[in-house]
C-alpha cells in the first residue's frame, strides 16, 4: 500500500471540487462523495500502517518519495529545491489512521447533525478540503510542504468556524483564529528560513542528518525556538491559546474533528516530526516543556468554572494539548504522540456527544440542562466513557497515555512538571465530572427534555467509545511490541511500569470525581456559595485571566492607533508636501505671469538692459575692469 500513499490526501482533495461544482444541489450525494472519499483514504491508511509495521519501516529508515514542485537552478546544483513529497514512517502511518478514522466518523455523524442546514453540501466540501490538507500535512516530507498545508488547514478552520457567517460572533471568531495563527506562522516561517540559511534545505531527512553536525548552536536554538512558535499557535498554547475557545462558534462536528482531534494536534505532530531539531537543544526543550506544562494547568483552571459545554471541552483540549507539548519538552516523543492518539478518540467522542446534546436541546449552558442521562442513554453512556478516559481512570485509553507523560516527566527528572501534571489530572477529572453531574444527572433545571439522536450520530459515538476504551492498550506497559516500539526518537525503549505514578494519578482522578459529585451531584456544598466566597479568584478565572481583554486593548489602542496615525501622516504630511510642490509651481506661475505684461516699451527696456550687461561682460577682459 505504501506506493499508493499519495492517494490518501488525493481522495478528499478530489471530493472538494466534485462537491462544489457537481453535486452541490444534491445534498445527500454530496455527503456520500465526502464520506466515500475519506473512507477510501482510511482503507489505504490502514493498509499503510499494517505494511509499515510489517515491513519494518522504522523512524530511522523511512520511505520517501518526492517530485520537484518548484526548483530554481543555481551555479552549482539547485539554488532552491522545493519538493512535493511523501515521508512514510510509523509516525506518519499512525497519524494517517487517526486522522482518517476520526474524519470518517465525524463525516458520518455530520449527516445527522447538519441535516436540514442550508449549507449542508458546502459543509461537506469544506470537511473534504480540510481532510485533504490535514493528510497532506501529515505526509509532508519537508518544512515547506508542511507549512503549505499548515496554512490550508488554517484556512479550513477559518471557513468552518465562520460557517454560520450570519452570526457576528462566528465571523469575529473566525477572524480571530486566523490572525492569531498568522502571528504564530510568522515565527514558524522565520524558523525554517533560518534552517534553510544554515543547511540549504527544507527536507526533514536531510535536516535530520545535518542538524547533529551544526556548528552554530545559538543560531540553531533560535531557529528551533522560532519553529516552536508555530505549534504555540496551532496547538493553542499559552499565550496564543485565545482563538480556540472562540472557535467553538463553528458547528460541533468541526469542533470535534478540527479543534479537538486533528488540526490542533498538528503542532504536536510538527514537534514530533522535527524532534531531532529540538532534542539536541536543552534550552529549547526546557521552554517547550514549561510552555506545555503551564498551558495544561492554566487552561484546566479556566475549564473548572466555564458554563458552556463546548467551552469546557475547549479548555480541556488546550489543557490536554499542553500535556502533549510538555511530553515533547521532557523528551518523550512517544508519550506525546501516544496521548495525541488516544486524545483524538476520546475528545472527538466528547465533542460529538456534546453535539448530540446541543442537537437535542439547542442549549449549551450546562446549568440549564440536567437529567439528560434518562432521555439520551447512548449519548450519556458514551459521554461518560469519554470523560472517564479523559480523567485517566484505568483501564481506559487516557489512563495509559497520560501515565506515560507523567512517567516521562518523573523519570527524566522534571519533578516540578510531574507534580503540576498530577494537579492537572485532578482538575481534569473534576471539571469533566462537574459537567456530567450537572448536565446528565439531577433535575431538569430549565425543563428541557432531550431525545436521542438518529443512528448516523449514535453509531460514531459508539465506535469512538469503544476506541476510547481499547486504544490505550496498544501502548500499555504490558504490551510487548506496542506503541513505543513504533513511534520513538533515538532508541525504542520499553518503559517499565511505575506503580507509584500509576497509583497517584488514579487516586487524584478519583478524588476529582468524588469532589465533583460532592459539590454538584450530592450538592453537599452550594457551588454558588463557593464562587461567592472566592469571588475575586472566581472572576479572574471565569474571565480567562483577562488575556483576551489585554489583546483587544492592544489591538484597538496600539495597532489601530498607530494605523490611524500613519493614515493622518500620509494625508496631512506626505500628501501636503507633494501637493505643496504643485501649489508652489502654480503660485510662482501666477507671480511670473507679471513679467509678460505685453507692453513693448518694457520689453525694449529689458532687452536694452540685457545688451548692456552682456557688452560689459564681454568687454571686461579687454578693458581690464572686473577680474
Amino acid at each position, binding site marked *: 500500500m505504501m506506493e499508493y500513499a499519495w492517494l490518501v490526501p488525493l481522495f478528499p482533495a478530489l471530493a472538494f471540487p466534485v462537491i462544489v461544482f457537481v453535486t452541490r444541489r444534491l445534498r445527500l450525494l454530496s455527503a456520500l462523495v465526502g464520506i466515500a472519499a475519506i473512507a477510501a483514504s482510511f482503507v489505504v491508511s490502514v493498509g499503510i500502517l499494517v505494511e509499515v509495521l510489517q515491513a519494518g519501516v522504522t523512524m530511522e529508515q523511512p520511505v520517501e518519495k518526492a517530485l520537484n514542485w518548484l526548483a530554481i537552478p543555481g551555479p552549482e546544483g539547485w539554488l532552491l529545491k522545493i519538493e512535493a513529497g511523501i515521508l512514510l514512517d510509523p509516525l506518519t502511518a499512525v497519524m494517517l489512521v487517526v486522522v482518517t478514522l476520526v474524519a470518517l466518523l465525524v463525516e458520518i455523524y455530520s449527516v445527522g447533525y447538519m441535516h436540514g442546514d442550508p449549507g449542508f453540501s458546502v459543509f461537506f466540501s469544506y470537511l473534504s478540503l480540510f481532510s485533504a490538507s490535514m493528510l497532506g500535512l501529515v505526509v509532508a516530507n519537508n518544512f515547506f510542504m508542511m507549512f503549505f498545508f499548515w496554512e490550508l488547514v488554517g484556512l479550513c478552520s477559518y471557513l468552518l468556524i465562520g460557517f454560520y457567517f*450570519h452570526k457576528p460572533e462566528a465571523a469575529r471568531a473566525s477572524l480571530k483564529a486566523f*490572525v492569531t495563527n*498568522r502571528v504564530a506562522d*510568522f515565527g514558524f516561517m522565520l524558523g525554517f528560513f533560518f534552517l534553510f540559511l544554515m543547511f540549504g534545505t527544507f527536507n526533514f531527512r536531510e535536516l535530520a542528518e545535518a542538524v547533529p553536525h551544526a556548528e552554530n548552536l545559538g543560531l540553531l536554538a533560535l531557529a528551533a525556538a522560532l519553529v516552536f512558535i508555530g505549534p504555540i499557535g496551532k496547538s493553542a498554547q499559552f499565550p496564543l491559546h485565545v482563538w480556540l475557545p472562540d472557535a467553538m462558534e463553528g458547528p460541533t462536528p468541526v469542533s470535534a474533528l478540527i479543534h479537538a482531534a486533528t488540526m490542533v494536534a498538528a503542532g504536536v505532530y510538527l514537534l514530533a516530526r522535527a524532534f531531532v531539531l529540538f532534542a539536541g537543544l536543552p534550552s529549547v526543550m526546557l521552554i517547550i516543556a514549561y510552555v506545555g506544562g503551564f498551558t495544561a494547568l492554566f487552561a484546566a483552571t479556566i475549564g473548572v468554572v466555564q458554563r458552556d459545554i463546548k467551552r469546557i471541552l475547549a479548555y480541556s483540549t488546550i489543557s490536554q494539548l499542553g500535556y502533549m507539548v510538555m511530553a515533547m519538552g521532557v523528551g518523550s516523543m512517544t508519550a506525546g504522540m501516544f496521548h495525541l492518539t488516544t486524545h483524538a478518540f476520546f475528545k472527538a467522542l466528547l465533542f460529538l456527544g456534546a453535539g448530540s446534546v446541543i442537537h437535542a436541546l439547542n442549549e449549551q449552558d450546562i446549568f440549564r440542562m440536567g437529567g439528560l442521562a434518562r432521555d439520551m442513554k447512548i449519548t450519556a453512556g458514551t459521554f461518560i466513557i469519554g470523560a472517564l478516559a479523559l480523567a485517566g481512570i484505568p483501564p481506559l485509553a487516557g489512563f495509559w497515555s497520560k501515565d506515560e507523560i507523567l512517567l516521562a516527566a518523573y523519570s527524566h527528572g522534571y519533578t516540578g512538571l510531574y507534580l503540576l501534571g498530577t494537579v492537572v489530572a485532578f482538575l481534569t477529572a473534576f471539571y469533566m465530572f462537574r459537567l456530567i453531574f450537572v448536565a446528565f444527572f439531577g433535575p431538569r433545571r430549565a425543563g428541557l427534555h432531550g431525545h436521542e439522536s438518529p443512528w448516523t450520530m449514535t453509531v460514531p459515538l459508539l465506535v469512538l467509545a469503544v476506541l476510547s476504551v481499547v486504544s490505550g492498550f496498544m501502548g500499555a506497559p504490558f504490551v510487548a511490541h506496542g506503541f513505543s516500539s513504533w513511534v520513538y526518537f533515538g532508541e525504542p525503549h520499553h518503559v517499565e511500569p511505575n506503580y507509584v505514578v500509576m497509583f497517584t494519578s488514579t487516586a487524584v482522578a478519583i478524588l476529582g470525581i468524588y469532589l465533583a459529585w460532592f459539590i454538584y451531584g450530592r450538592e453537599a456544598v452550594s457551588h454558588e456559595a463557593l464562587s461567592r466566597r472566592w469571588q475575586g479568584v472566581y472572576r479572574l478565572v471565569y474571565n480567562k485571566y483577562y488575556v483576551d481583554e489585554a489583546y483587544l486593548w492592544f489591538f484597538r489602542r496600539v495597532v489601530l492607533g498607530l494605523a490611524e496615525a500613519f493614515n493622518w501622516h500620509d494625508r496631512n504630511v506626505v500628501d501636503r508636501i507633494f501637493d505643496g510642490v504643485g501649489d508652489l509651481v502654480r503660485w510662482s506661475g501666477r507671480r511670473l505671469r507679471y513679467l509678460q505684461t505685453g507692453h513693448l516699451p518694457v520689453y525694449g527696456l529689458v532687452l536694452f538692459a540685457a545688451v548692456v550687461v552682456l557688452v560689459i561682460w564681454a568687454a571686461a577682459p579687454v578693458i581690464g575692469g572686473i577680474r
Partner: protein
Amino acid sequence: MSFPLLTSILLAPVIGLILILIIPEREQLLIKITAAVATFVALALSVYAYVAYDQQLGGMQFLEDRVWVPAFGINYSLGVDGISLPMVLLTAIVIFTGVFASWDMTNRIKEFFIFLLMLVTGVFGVFMTRDLFFFYLFFEVAVIPMYLLIGIWGSTRKEYAAMKLTLYLLVGSAFALIGIIALFLYASNQLGYLTFDIQTLATVEYDIGFQKFIFFLMLVGFGVLVPIWPLHLWSPDGHVAAPTAVSMLHAGVLMKLGAYGLIRVGVFFFPEGAKFWAPLIAVLCIVNVVYGAMIAMVQRDLKFVIGYSSVSHMGYVLLGIAALNTLSLSGAVTQMFAHGIMTALFFALVGNIYHKAHTREIARFGGLAHQMPKVAAGFLIGGLASLGLPGLHNFVAEFLIFLGAFTSDQVLWGGLLSYRVLAVLAISGIVITATYVLRVVQKTFFGPRKAEWDVLEDARGVELVPIVVLCSVLLLFGLFPSLMVDLINTGVAPLVAKIEAAKAVGGIF
C-alpha cells in the same frame, strides 16, 4: 519570414480601436463585442507565445526587426524574454477581463473603449520592445490616456485625482527621459555610433559615477510608477477615482511598468548603480509594506483599502529588486504577475458591488454574502491571495522574495541593519495583511442579512468572466508555480549573471 506574433498582439487592440472608431455610438453592444474580441485575440496570441516560448533556449524570442529612423539608430524591434513574457500575458488577461468588467458602462462608451485600447497598446509595447526609443514612446502612450479615462469616467474627486496622477507620472517620466537621453549619448560616445538597441546599450561599460547618477534618475522616474514611498500618493487617489476597468489596468499593469522599467533599464544597464542604491530601495520598500498595510487597515472605502494594499504589495516587488539575487528577482517578477491578477480581481469585484450599491463605504455594508455569494467567494479568494495563502500564486512570489532577501548577507550602515532584518520586517507584513483583509471580508460580507441590500443581485453572466478567469489563474500558478517561475528564471539568470559580474560597490547606506 515567420508569423509576426508580437506585432499581432500589439495590433489586435489597435485594430479593435480603429473598428470602434467607425462603429456608431448607439451600437453599444457591438462596441463592447469588438473590444472583447480584440482583447481576446491578444490574449489567445499571448497564451500561444507563452506556451511556445523555448525555455531551453532562453533569451529574447519571437524577434522582429524593422529599421525605423536609421539616422538615430532607432529600430522597431520586438522580442520577449522570461521577464517580459509573463508581463505580456498579465496585460492580456487583465485587459480581457477588464472589458467584461466594463460591460455595464453606458456613458460615452465609444471613447472609453478607444482610450482603453490605446492605453493597453502602449503597455504591450513597453513590454515587447527591444528599442529604448520605442520603450519611452510606448511608456507615454500608456500614461496619457489614463488622464482622460479617470477625468471623464471616474468618480470621487476625479479631476483632482486625474491631474494628480498625470503630474506624478509625467514628472517621473521626465526623470526617466533625462536618464535615457544621457545614457544614449554616453553609449553612443563609447560605441562610436548611434543606437537605441537595448541589448547593445547594455553591453557598454558605464562609468560608476555615471551609473550612480543615472540609476537615481531611473529610480525616481520608474519608482513613482511602482509606486515607491513617499511617491505613492497618486496611486490610492487614482485607484479610487478610476472606473473599474481602468483601476484594474492601473493597479494590475501600469504599476508593473515601473517595476519592469526599473529592472530592464535600471538594473540591467547599471548593475553597479543598482548596487549603490539598493539599500535605499530596501529601506523605503519596508515603509511601503508596513506603512501601506497599516493604513489599509483603517480605510473606510473599499477601493482605498485595495489602493493602499497595492502600495504595500508592490513594496515586496521592490524588496525583491533591492536584494538583487536570483531568488528575490524571480520572486519580484512573479509578484508583479500575481499582484496584477489579484488586484484586478479585487477591482472587478468592488466595481461590481459599487455599480449596484452606489457606495463603497465598508461601514454601510455587512452580510453581503447572503445576497452576493459569488462575489463574496471571489473577494475571499482575492483576499486569501493577498495575504499569501499557499495554493494561490501570490504565496509563491512572496515566499521567493522573502527567502531571497532573507538569505542575502548584505548589511547596511556597517552592520547596524541587514537585509535579513529588513526581510523579517517585510514578512511581518503577512500578519498585518491578514488582519486588514479579513477584517474587510468580515465587515463587508459576513454578519446578519441586511434588508437594505436585498436589491443587490449576485454576479451573473458576463460579470462572472473576470471573477472566474482571474481566480483560475491565481489557482493554476499557485498550485503549479513552476509553470511560471521556470520561465521567469530564464529571464532572471542573465540579469543575475550581470549583477554578479559587476564590480563590488558599497551601498549608499
